Structure formats: structure tokens, C-alpha cells
């Protein structure tokens, strides 16, 4: 039950980075250190190739899934590759190493391959990203709204959506039923 204090330090990050550059160098847009994690930027179409390498490579072993979410960069101060980015956070359970993979998603609707075949936990995270940002995950077994009502039309975390909504609450089926 002993657990020495294991840290994902700069040299460990450099090791992971070197291995990635060697095997998937052409697919990486940009890499950087971000807090305790290693940040990797890729194009949306390469996401499965990069994620499966991170997961299956015996030297890296990022088998632990932590989070998938999205960001709408349309009003951000720094120019980005695309408007939407899907963000995956993975961990290596034995060393405690973390990577943040940021995949820029192109298209309207923004479309990216689903990571559910690699990490089962991505199922709800991707549904949430679809629910809030309207990002389409190809190959997701059950891509439907998760937190918002099923008859909702907008994507509330997109930057053009106002804080106080557009009055759609009055149109929900359950409210109409109460009125009648």
C-alpha cells in the first residue's frame, strides 16, 4: 500500500514528448507545458491516431481517461486554428502523468471522430460537448442531449448564446402542458 510521491516533472514530460515526436511527429501541431500536464495540439482528423498511440504505446500507457470537453474560441483574444476545440485529458495511472490533447474541429456542424471506441468514459463527455456546443462525434453510439431537455434547439455554451437564454423555457412541452 506504499505510494511514494511520484511527480510528472520536466524530464518525464520531455520523455513523453520525444516518444510522441518520434512516432506521431507529423500529426502534432504544437506542444507545450501547461501546469502539471503536457499539452498537445492536433487537427481533428488525427485525433484517433494520436489518442490510440497515447493509450496503447507501452512506454506511454495513458490508459486512464479523465475528461473530454470543448471550447468555443470565436471571441478569444488569441487567434486559434479553428473556432471549436475538443479537449481530452488523459492520465497514466502509475506515474500520475497527464496529457491534455486539444483537437481543433473544422466544419459546420463541427465534426470529429468519437473516442468512445478507445475510452468508454468518453460517452457522456462527448454527449455533453454535443449538447452544449453542437459538436458532432462520428461513431458515437448514442449521441443525444444529456443535460439539456430533449426538445432544446440551441447550444448554450456557444459564445453567441446569451446568459439569460432566448425565452425557450416557455416553449418546453412540460410547461405548455401545465398551461392547458
Amino acid at each position, binding site marked *: 500500500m506504499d505510494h511514494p510521491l511520484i511527480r510528472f516533472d520536466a524530464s518525464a514530460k520531455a520523455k513523453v514528448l520525444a516518444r510522441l515526436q518520434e512516432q506521431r511527429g507529423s500529426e502534432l501541431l504544437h506542444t507545450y507545458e501547461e501546469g502539471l500536464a503536457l499539452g498537445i495540439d492536433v487537427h481533428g482528423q488525427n485525433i484517433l491516431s494520436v489518442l490510440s498511440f497515447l493509450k496503447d504505446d507501452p512506454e506511454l500507457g495513458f490508459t486512464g481517461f479523465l475528461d473530454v470537453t470543448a471550447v468555443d474560441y470565436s471571441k478569444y483574444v488569441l487567434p486559434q486554428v479553428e473556432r471549436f476545440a475538443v479537449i481530452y485529458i488523459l492520465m497514466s495511472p502509475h506515474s500520475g502523468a497527464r496529457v491534455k490533447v486539444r483537437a481543433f474541429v473544422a466544419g459546420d456542424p463541427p465534426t470529429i471522430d468519437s473516442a468512445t471506441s478507445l475510452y468508454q*468514459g468518453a460517452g457522456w463527455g462527448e454527449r455533453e460537448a454535443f449538447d452544449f456546443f453542437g459538436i458532432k462525434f462520428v461513431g458515437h453510439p448514442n449521441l443525444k442531449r444529456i443535460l439539456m431537455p430533449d426538445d432544446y434547439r440551441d447550444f448554450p455554451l456557444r459564445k453567441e448564446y446569451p446568459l439569460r437564454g432566448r425565452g425557450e423555457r416557455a416553449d418546453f412541452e412540460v410547461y405548455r402542458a401545465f398551461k392547458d
Partner: protein
Amino acid sequence: MYSYETEVLEQTDNTVFVNVGPSHPAMHGTLRVKLELSGEKIVSVEQEIGYLHTGFEKLGEHHSYNQFITVTDRMNYLSPLNNNIGYAQAVEELMGIVVPRRCQVIRTVLAEMSRIADHIVAVGLMTMDLGAFSSVLWSMIEREKLYDIFEATTGTRLTTSYTRVGGLAFDLPDGFVKRTREIMDTCTDTLGQLRESFVNNRIFLDRTQGVGVISKADALSFGLTGPMARASGVPCDQRTYRPYLIYPELKFEVPIYTEGDSLTRYLIRLDELEQSISMVRQALDLLEPGPINVPNSKYVLPVKKETYNDMESLIHHFKVTMPGSDHGIHPPVGELYSSTEVPNGELGFFIVSDGHHNAYRMRVRSPSFYNYQVLTKILPGHMVSDLVAILGSMNIIAGELDR
């Protein structure tokens, strides 16, 4: 806009559909599952969440960094202090602030006390779900004592909002250390009672042993963290993975089991309670007088006495509290994922900052959201009554599940 494909459960002649929740005494909070049953055996499960969705992430983009602390109280409402601390930690890391020593010790003490309050109620509620009512009252008594301390410290029992970016709202009250030490002793007694009553209890073992087994591979793949992952043999604990607060100075063990069933998820919480009690005692020894806030009035409010008597402090007071792009706390442009260990697992905040007084994007990675998802996978093949045993052992909090 897109049409969404809805999954339709196929009904055969021998199965019956039963809806459980969202308002049901066995479903903690507002959880809802649709069960397809063959006799009393569960064939398939569909989970429906979102009944408590309150748009925390959208609020995070419109509240200033200090205002959002009040929202974090409402995520895991069994241990709001852990959320406060995790959030303050994330913003401080984004800004590159290190809080003073006394603040770190106080945060560690309160984080562990809050963990005790959460775990002790979680184990109590699990046994109550399985038919033992006295035990939940024992644990509620202990939690009430802890809540008394939280009330004396923070002013409220539940919506504590105790941390600030760069420090704390106020210092500890008089007699905190003495009272806390007393409560740690009574907690140890209750813990012994909870262990004795259930660990060798045939009825309890029959209902939990081998029920709801999660394999290590599934735990990793589903993104489980906290006691649920550690019961399945995944040694993930932010307190040992990364140095934060004063955890590197404390002596503690991270209990790990490999069975991954409901019983081990119960046992692991009891073990962690023991560890937390010892950590509170150790951390109290390290408590020394000193400042609790960063000595920089650009981030934290100046002392009231100075605000009233010194012009510069008065200006700082307004600069920190006023809204607008020129005032308030301004982290540098950038993004950061920062996580801490809360009772249910890893609570992560992914903050994208564009240099304004509010976040550009505030993602809350709540442990319950990913922990709950695994239910669909493990439930088929069990009896309906096992649903209660499994769900009780998961300790899902609807507030942080739906956010």
C-alpha cells in the same frame, strides 16, 4: 439544427420496463434509471440525467473569479469546502500565486474535515439503503458536530464560500483546535461502531459482496476516480500524485482494494476516514500564527481597518470588487486544467482565461459525472435490489453530476 437519434429499447415478450426516479427515496438526489427487467433480473439499463442542471459552466463565464466560489458550494453539497479549496487552488495556479503557510494548513485541515463529513454520511446512507437505520443516525450525529465547527468557522453550515482567490475569507475562530481534536476522538469511536456493525454482518455481506464488480480496466476506461477507482485497484489519488497544500508533509496511506465490489467501496471509505482523522490531527500540529492572505492588494481585499483609514487601501478595495475589464482579478491569458482530490474523486477545473475579470471558459470536471456513467455497464445481470446496494456504494451527488 440537427436531429438527434433517440435510442429505443427493444421490448421482447418476456421483459418489463420499470422506471426508477427521478424522485424516489432510493435514488440519491434526482437520479433516474429506466430498467428492463426479466423477472427480477435487470437486462438493460438506460440512465437519464440532467434533472438538476443549473448551468454552472455558463455562470462561470459571467461571474467574476471570486463570485464563482459561491457556485462551487452547490456542486457537491456534502463537502462544499473541498470544492471551494479546489477552485481557489485552480485559479491561484492559473495566476501563479502561492498562498501563505497558515492558509495552506487551514485549507488542508478543513479539506480533510470536510472529507470526513462526506464519507461518514456516505457510509451511513449506504447502510440505510440496505435497511440499517441506526447507523445513519450515528453518522449524522458526527456530521452535525463537524457542521457546528464549519458554521463557527465560515458562518454557514452548507454554503460555506470560505476560500478566496489568494487566501481565505477570514481566520479560524477561537477554540477551533481544541474543539476539532475532541470531535476527531468521537469520530474515531463512531467509525469503530460502523466497522463492527457491518464488516462481519452476514446480511450486509450477502447484499454487497461480489455485487456491482468493476474491473480495473473498466475503472480506467470509464474515468473513475476517488474511492470507486481505488476499490478497483487503480492507485489514483491527487494527494500523492502531485504536491499541493501541505499533503507532502503529512504521513498517510492511500488504501487500495482490488475486488471492486460494493463491499470494498464501503470499506475503502472507512479506511479513508481513519486516514483523514489522522491527517487532521497531524495538520493541526502544524498550525502556526501568520497571515492567511497573499500580501498583494491586487488580488485580495485589504484589511478592513486599513480600508477605512488609508486611501490606497480604499482604492484597492474598490479595484478588487468592481466589475469591468479594468478592475477585479485578472489572470494572464492562457488555460489550465487543475485538479484536487475531493471525497468522490478528482474535481478538475479547466479554466480558459482571456485576461478579463471573468473566465472565458469554465469547465468543471466533476467526479460524480464520470463515476455514475459506469452503472449502465455493471448493472445488467443483477437483481433490482442490487441497484440500491450499488448506487449506495457509489455516493453520487446530483449537484455535481448535473452541474
